[in-house]
């Protein structure tokens, strides 16, 4: 029996994504999907890109999904979702099926989103399909064995950006996917982390309720790839947020809003030092990362203050 993640009257007991999947122990991404699924509800169709969450949830003849779910390829989740959404609309308009307001949600990893699936995602956002795209970001191609993606953070050692005498690991800064989504002028963009489960569910629910395209970028710790103890995933997620490495914010119709009022950012070293993928970093590099994180965080603060939206205290 799985322990239900719910507080009476606060979190639904609904579990469209069931226990028994094959995710690694300590996987925060599976938790993110579980929470997101609770917020999505039963009246939905899930389109899943190839990746960890597809593989762990659907080894034939088993499935973790109690709601309709389709997986086809790696880079096309947004395009398949476009077809599902347009198909439903067309069939309803023609009276071939009753109007049921079925929600369409695409799930993809950071590689499937920021690398190979970026074009399909951009197309679907630009066309204005009424759907939610959730990027499950664990900062590398974890399913194939921890290869770097454009979402891998600076300094992280992965199997294709290994730290070595001549390299500090990943030498590029993490691609800012939420900003790319915002640039499409879509009605709703948000970042979330399963370490803040109620915030995550609230955002997914909001995304689902938003007419038109919505994008939710969820950072989820991968103990296997981040080289950390399996019981640290939630703690690490919290530190990602509290250090400003992964700020929680929403962009509604272009208006930025920081969700947590962090009066002072925790030092980024606290976050990096918990993870084996950063263990080779020198204090100089950590300082460099700190400067970048502070600078990026301040940009967000500036954008949010322009909108005049107040962040809630943590």
């Amino acid at each position, binding site marked *: 029996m799985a322990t239900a993640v719910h507080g009476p009257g606060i979190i639904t007991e609904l579990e469209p994504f069931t226990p028994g999947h094959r995710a690694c122990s300590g996987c925060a991404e599976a938790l993110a999907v579980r929470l997101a699924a609770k917020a999505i509800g039963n009246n939905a169709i899930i389109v899943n890109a190839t990746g960890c969450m597809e593989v762990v949830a659907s080894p034939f003849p088993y499935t973790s999904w109690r709601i309709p779910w389709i997986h086809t390829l790696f880079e096309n989740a947004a395009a398949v979702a*476009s077809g599902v959404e*347009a198909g*439903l609309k067309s069939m309803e308009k023609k009276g071939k099926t009753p109007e049921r307001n079925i929600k369409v949600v695409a799930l993809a990893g950071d590689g499937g989103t920021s690398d190979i699936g970026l074009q399909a995602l951009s197309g679907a956002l630009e066309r204005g399909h009424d759907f939610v795209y959730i990027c499950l970001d664990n900062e590398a191609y974890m399913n194939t064995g921890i290869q770097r993606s454009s979402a891998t953070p600076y300094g992280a050692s992965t199997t294709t950006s290994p730290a070595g005498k001549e390299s500090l690991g990943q030498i590029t800064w993490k691609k800012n996917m939420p900003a790319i989504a915002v640039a499409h002028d879509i009605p709703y963009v948000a970042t979330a982390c399963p370490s803040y489960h109620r915030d995550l569910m609230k955002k997914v629910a909001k995304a689902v309720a938003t007419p038109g395209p919505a994008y939710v970028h969820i950072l989820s710790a991968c103990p296997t790839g981040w080289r950390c103890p399996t019981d640290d995933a939630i703690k690490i997620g919290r530190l990602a947020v509290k250090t400003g490495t992964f700020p929680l914010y929403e962009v509604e119709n272009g208006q930025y809003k920081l969700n947590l009022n962090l009066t002072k950012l925790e030092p980024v070293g606290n976050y990096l030092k918990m993870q084996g993928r950063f263990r080779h970093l020198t204090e100089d590099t950590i300082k460099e990362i700190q400067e970048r994180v502070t600078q990026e965080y301040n940009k967000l603060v500036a954008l949010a203050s322009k909108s005049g939206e107040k962040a809630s205290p943590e």
Partner: protein
Amino acid sequence: MTKREGLEVSIAVADAAMLSDVDVVSAYPITPQTHIVEHLAELVANGELKAAYIPVESEHSAMSACLGASAIGARTFTATASQGLELMHEVLYVASAMRFPIVMAVANRALSAPISIWGDHSDVMATRDVGWIQIFVENGQEAVDNVICAFRMGEDKRVLLPVMIHLDGFVLTHVIEPIELPDKKDVDRFLPPFKYPLPLDPEKPVTMGAFGQPFIYTEVKWAQEINLEKSKDVILEVWQEFGKAFGRQYSPIEQYQTDGAKVLLLTMGSYSETAMVAVDKMRNDGKEVGLLKLRLWRPFPYEELRESIKSAEILIVLDRAISFGGPGGPVCSEVKAALYGGEKQPKVVGFVGGLGGRDITMSGFEEMINRGIEIARTGSKREFEIYGVRE
């Protein structure tokens, strides 16, 4: 009463999709497919066609959106050509393996490099093994009729497979031909509404595209192969029904002037029309020459081919694509494989021609047939020859 009217073939193909009451069109423009999708967009914009038109950002997404639309049970149509067909390559395999009866018109065109917008069959041949039903048409009327037939073939519960209708770029897509568009009510009678057996539906949840481990993958592929093989019976049935309803009858291989023909030429697509004229002339000159027009490319019509070559001594096959470093043309090598070991084995001579829009005239076909006869008798230094190449 329907009447024949002068229509551009691309326009007529789009009209055929409209007559078939498609629910979703998802397409990306590429020459020479453009007129088909432009007209569909126009029909949707004018409210003549009640469908969602998804103007996707690539062919990969065009076919991917078709998967999604088909998965919820929408009747889905698209069209592409050449590089577009190659870009959607991996998605084509998914469409057939996941049993989505999408219909796609392919305006056959050469592949880069060098870039060429003109016709040949290189694009088709690269997608030979994707598990789709594939039909070549020779003229505009065949294109129209077979788009309508394609939905009924693909959507039949015994089949549930996607169908490609191949029509030659420009020489077919862009010409104006006398075409008879069937009446909507006749099409409605012929083509029942699409009822996908297990669509994505929250009221009856299914998991589609699960992960196939080694213990099951082989069986899935075997089932797929058997299914495509067996689809031939339904294809024949649909053509028969279509013939009864509309008076035009199609077959996997059409024979032309084959009575007593010792020499047969096999062609596909629009070039068959010129080849017929060449065969007529040679017949008039007293030569025992006939023509086989291969219409059904997948599933390959083995029996019909064996049956149709019974009286022939020489079979000349024209390919409009090269299998580089291989036996020449893909069609010729399949024909050889189909006949090898059979009771009756004519000498099979392979030509490649009509690449990248290079025309083959009536006298060209005559020349090719004569050279084919010569090769059959005295041999050639090569596995195949390229007709009309300047070496």
